[in-house]
């Protein structure tokens, strides 16, 4: 029986408890493999769906296919797995930032199925965010099984995300960098080693099952000095497209929320609109990798006007799909929009200066992708490494860096936070490691309570109170109602100073007459950042804590800062 019990709890196996780093590495291999498998499963399912539905795309009614897919996807998420819909990545960041990476088990498969329905039917979205969510949830649940602490669990969630991105793009460095730059937000050796291993595991799974292929291979680009200068213009266009996509997506969310229809009807409406756009511009349908491949190879035959129009159409289609309730991510749409932007820009340059020997248009398509990814995610390294790995073109590294960096900087000026973090920041829920808010979020009012205060009644005579003051080492005294025990106010030693030298007043004044009733109070569930803000604003050094209208203790700035320091040491030591 004991053996069976131990078998049930892998966390108690001696081998895993020998060394924490070894344990993390072993779990990283498992998580990387599982998330890699999840990515391959989604990829295969999407291919199967595309092939199955391909025959129906020629019918006049094919525009309703994205509507059906999005509606089914919304119904699945809302009714069957009962998940709050979303892109996935913000939820992973939220869980990492606030709850030590705790995620539900159902998240490890729900987005795979829902995004397959949305994208497979023609919705304009990408499969990357769903596999990131799936991989992260797999990591979180495996970490739970091994009873890892919060810090270790966060690393394993990062491993899941890294394994998923590495597997779906066959790009281990991009997976690693994405996980650290976007999901975890901190570069630490303790994170990097397991995440690198998970990336390798995820990539290897993809290579075993799907072959070692570069997603968007192409011929060699010969980049000249003028091309590098021209990249600045492309970065500006990419930044504009990023901001446009971010804003339209968010405004679609807002409009959709106000619509008085069930989520599946809204998703169907969005899908239907995408289907109609797709009749005229089929490039907007699905993940769009086929078009990206054509653009990079330089065989995309549409003219300048159509390509330029397609940028706006794809932005609109993505916003309609994701903003109205469909499931999927923004990675793939960013790649499509970025390559369209690059192509448009190149064709514009050729039109203006036909005699200049510009590099092949595929190179600009590739640089546009990096610009869009970097601008949307505010993650230049992810953009650079992803494009290098999925195109296998190290020769474009210099313009790639220029486009990524300028695009990120410009986007940062216009939209100070990335698309993934925008909602979290607006709600004050983004708590990055080592930040003030994060340290304070790990403390609670309850653990800072100082309970050595002497409570006095409002009918107490000043004479009796002075006797109490003699015994107390505090300057503050909470006053409560004799009958109900409710908190009424506070008395500070300064409040009685004027009466102290007049003994005639000792039996004439009761505390209810001199107490301060306009007291700023703290409640048990108040956020400490808010408490600290109140103290700073009102120049207070301590405040009474109230629960159920009764005084339960004091909270002081000195204790708060002392605990803050200790918590910071714990967090930075881990």
């Amino acid at each position: 029986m004991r053996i069976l019990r131990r078998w049930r709890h892998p966390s108690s196996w001696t081998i895993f408890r020998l060394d924490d780093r070894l344990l993390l590495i072993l779990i990283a291999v498992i998580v990387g493999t599982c998330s890699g498998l999840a990515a391959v499963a989604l990829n295969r399912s999407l291919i199967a769906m595309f092939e199955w539905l391909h025959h129906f795309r020629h019918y006049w009614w094919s525009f309703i296919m994205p509507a059906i897919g999005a509606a089914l996807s919304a119904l699945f998420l809302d009714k069957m797995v009962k998940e709050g819909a979303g892109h996935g990545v913000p939820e992973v960041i939220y869980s990492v930032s606030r709850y030590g990476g705790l995620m539900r088990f159902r998240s490890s498969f729900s987005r795979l199925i829902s995004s397959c329905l949305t994208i497979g039917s023609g919705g304009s979205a990408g499969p990357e965010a769903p596999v990131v969510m799936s991989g992260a949830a797999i990591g979180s649940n495996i970490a739970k099984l091994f009873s890892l602490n919060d810090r270790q669990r966060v690393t394993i969630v990062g491993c899941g995300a890294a394994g998923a991105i590495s597997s779906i793009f066959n790009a281990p460095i991009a997976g690693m960098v994405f996980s650290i730059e976007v999901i975890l937000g901190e570069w630490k050796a303790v994170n990097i080693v397991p995440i690198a291993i998970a990336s390798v595991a995820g990539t290897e799974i993809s290579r075993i099952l799907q072959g070692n292929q570069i997603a968007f291979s192409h011929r060699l680009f010969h980049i000249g000095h003028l091309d590098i200068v021209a990249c600045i213009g492309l970065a500006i266009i990419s930044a504009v497209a990023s901001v446009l996509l971010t804003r339209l997506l968010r405004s679609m969310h807002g409009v959709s929320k106000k619509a008085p229809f069930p989520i599946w009807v809204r998703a169907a409406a969005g899908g239907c609109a995408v289907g109609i756009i797709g009749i005229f511009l089929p490039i907007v349908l699905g993940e769009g990798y086929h078009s990206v491949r054509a653009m990079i190879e330089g065989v995309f035959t549409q003219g300048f006007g159509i390509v330029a129009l397609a940028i706006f159409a794809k932005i609109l289609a993505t916003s309609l799909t994701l903003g109205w309730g469909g499931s999927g991510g923004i990675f793939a749409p960013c790649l499509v929009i970025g390559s369209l932007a690059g192509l448009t820009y190149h064709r514009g340059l050729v039109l203006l200066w036909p005699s200049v020997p510009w590099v092949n248009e595929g190179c600009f398509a590739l640089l546009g992708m990096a610009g869009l990814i970097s601008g949307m995610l505010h993650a230049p390294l992810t953009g650079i490494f992803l494009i290098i790995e999925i195109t296998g073109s190290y020769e474009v590294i210099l313009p790639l860096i220029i486009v990524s960096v300028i695009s990120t900087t410009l986007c940062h000026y216009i939209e100070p936070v990335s698309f993934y973090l925008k909602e979290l920041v607006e709600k004050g829920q983004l708590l990055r490691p080592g930040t003030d808010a994060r340290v304070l979020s790990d403390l609670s009012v309850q653990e800072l309570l100082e309970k050595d205060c002497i409570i006095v009644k409002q009918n107490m005579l000043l004479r009796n109170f002075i006797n109490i003051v003699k015994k107390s080492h505090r300057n503050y005294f909470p006053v409560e109602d004799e009958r109900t025990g409710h908190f009424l106010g506070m008395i500070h030693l300064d409040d009685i100073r004027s009466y102290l030298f007049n003994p005639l007043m000792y039996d004439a004044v009761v505390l209810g007459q001199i107490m301060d009733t306009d007291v700023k109070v703290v409640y048990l569930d108040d956020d400490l950042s808010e408490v600290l803000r109140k103290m700073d604003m009102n120049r207070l050094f301590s405040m009474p804590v109230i629960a159920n209208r009764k005084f339960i203790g004091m909270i002081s700035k000195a204790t708060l800062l002392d605990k803050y320091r200790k918590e910071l040491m714990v967090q930075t030591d881990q």
Partner: protein
Amino acid sequence: MDAQLFHIFRNTPLGRETLLQSIYFCKKAGASLIIYMPEFTKFLMYFENDVVQIDLDNSYLTSPETALKHAKELLDQGKIKARFLEPKNFTASTLPDIATNFDFMCCPRSISDLSSKIGLGYIGPRVRRIVNSARFPVLITSPVFKKWRSIAVFFGGSANAINALKLGFRISRASGMPLSVYTHMEKASKESYEEIIKNEKLEEEMDRYVTEWHMFERGKFEENIYDVPHDALVVLGAYGHSLIKNIFFGSKMEKIQSTITNNLLIAGPNYGLGQK
């Protein structure tokens, strides 16, 4: 400091009975009441090492326009003040996070399934996970409001049972109600149970709070449960054993909850961890 009991209000007659039970518990145990009026049919509870999504039965959202009024009426009748909980954090726009730093939580036997399913012998999967993960004990109420006038603790000698016994002392101390201990002696002797109490240094509290210690040497466990007064709050530990042991030998908590209609206060395996 006041202990806090967390209650999810269901605006139905069944919900009324459950709230009455919570009010009674708070008055007796000296706890303050925190009520959550759900706006969505789901919410998340983040525990130490688990996250539980509670998918509420749709009846929780019945007539939201009258819910607050109904709850306040019951509170006024019970002459008790309560705080209404407003979720601050949301994992998704329709998925609020509910804090888990309470001292007690009140649940009917199921909160996810239709109330028509609720009966003896059935505890919903979400309630089970809360009991398993929470550091607070869960008050599983009888379907109809029933005042309890004594406390009955089931004590089998395990670590969980000791936690349940300590919980019994705590409720007895706060409510002033008599406490009885029930032990179904399996292979162990009376002395061995007394030894456990001695080792845990609970002798003094046993003398102070326990009015009677019923030790059943004969008869089936289910039969002996009949001796528990119908108006006692039954306190017991749960899920202290491994799944395998439960499959082979059965769970005592399951036997108790499928046999008696009393209010149950269940201490899960994580109860008391924060206090050690």
